């Protein structure tokens, strides 16, 4: 179980690193805040995702522009459910289990 003094690091990527990744980041920050978890949410462009993850330690990656990013060492979640609201609950279930494992 994640303890309160640990920070969860999430990389959120979208096509341009500005638009949809911002929406997902806002919703993730809200979620972590409600759970009482400390989290750092970093935004980036999908083309840079692999390099960013290789150069810095992240617990997971959330992408709104396809999850096939060539990343193997960190779990990658599809962030589209946070934009549409469909499948949002499954998304958070997966998120919770990733946080618990890390």
């Amino acid at each position: 179980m994640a303890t309160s003094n640990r920070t969860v690091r999430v990389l959120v990527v979208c096509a341009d690193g500005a638009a949809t990744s911002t929406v997902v980041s806002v919703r993730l920050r809200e979620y972590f805040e409600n759970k009482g978890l400390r989290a750092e949410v970093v935004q980036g462009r999908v083309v840079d995702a692999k390099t960013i993850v290789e150069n810095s330690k992240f617990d997971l990656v959330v992408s709104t522009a396809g999850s096939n990013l060539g990343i193997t060492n960190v779990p990658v979640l599809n962030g589209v459910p946070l934009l549409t609201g469909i499948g949002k609950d499954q998304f958070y279930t997966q998120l919770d289990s990733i946080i618990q494992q890390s």
Partner: protein
Amino acid sequence: MGSVFNIVIKAFGAAVLLPLIILVFELALGVKFSKALRSALYIGIGLNTLISILNPYFMGLVGKAVSDMITGAGVNLPYVDTGWSLLASLAYSTLIGALIIPIGIIVNLAMIFLHWTDTLDLDLWNFWHWAFVGSLVYYATNNLIYGLLSAIAMEMFLLVIGDATAPTMQKFFNLPGLAWPHASGQGGTLIALPVKWISDRIGLSKIQLNSQTIRNKLGLLGDASVIGFIIAVIIGLIAWGSKLSDLQVWGSLFALGIGTAAYIFMYPKATAALMEGFEPLTSRVTELLSKSGSQRGLNFGMDSALCIGHPDVITTGLLVMLTTVPLMFLLPGNRILILGDIGVTPFFLASAITAIMGGNIITSYIATTISVIVTLYFSSAVSTNFASLLTTIGIALPDTGSAVVGADTRPLHGLFWMLGKWTIGGIPLGLILAFVCIFAMLFFFRRNKKAWYRAFGYEEEQHEARTEVNV
């Protein structure tokens, strides 16, 4: 009503007025006050950073070189694209922009109710595209109704196109339940159809290239900031090429390149603040509408940005981005330098096109390149009035000599701008034509959906979508 609004917007400026409008909408829809206030502030931050800090910096930097290029070397490219955020800022700073969100939602709901569309567009932010075109028409014709009708025509057209492309795009991008009535992402769709039709017949569609190999070969050139640097240095070389013995000139040349790269790097950050401010409103509307929407089996309209991470779209976008650089300088009659959006426009245009082409890089490249050429011509045409329109609504611009801020106007924006302002003897011929075409599309699409899906690239026997989602 229009003139009162113009006085108010001039007095307050977009960076103050748009936050207020959004605040009112959010409170009306029951968003918590503290959240609404914060979001309004973030919209103000985003607009202020774009309009008052980044844009003047960039125009000031590039303006001198572009001016020298025109007067010294006679290369007549006076309009400088500083990125789509300025267009969005303009769009939301007019009366049409203030009305577009409620009107856009009402038109969409009415079309759903009449069974004219199966798309519920939840991508509120991107209503700006319609407001942008509507505002251009409004100020060109001085007729608010024409402006509003242009915006509505564009929305209706995109909802139909969103429906027609949904099966193809859902399958190709592996994103079920969504549709993309996005003006830039669908910008090349009408161009893709004939290109696909011809390519299928001459066998071009059968030649497949590996997109990953192409991407690996591009290396450093795959970065928009690097391309921005290169374009700026080209401009500098044309402007000051005869004075290269002077060390000072070399300094200016590299300052220009690095400043441009910095701008392309920074402006998505300001946009992110704007998007963050918009989020509570989108979130609230999604909450209110999405449940009944999914009960009826509607597709949710989304930003085409969701499609741009696809490897084939990235590869097509990168190749077209590289092609755009010589095109800007060599295309006869072109007057615009695409700088801010050099890493944006080719990718958005490539999104629907690549899906329609089933991931074929060659045909996608051809259709996207044609779309960019159309964009360059529309941008050249729209930009003649763009700067004066910005001043009219109170966006101050630095004096940059012969260089003027331009508008990156993609194919559908340009099309509806032309239709909207086309009147003969007081009769809005273009608008009549637009609505006749939209209703004809609706009629024929409803009658034979399968044939339309196929024309837009849908293949039933096509095996599973190629993007894997490892969730």
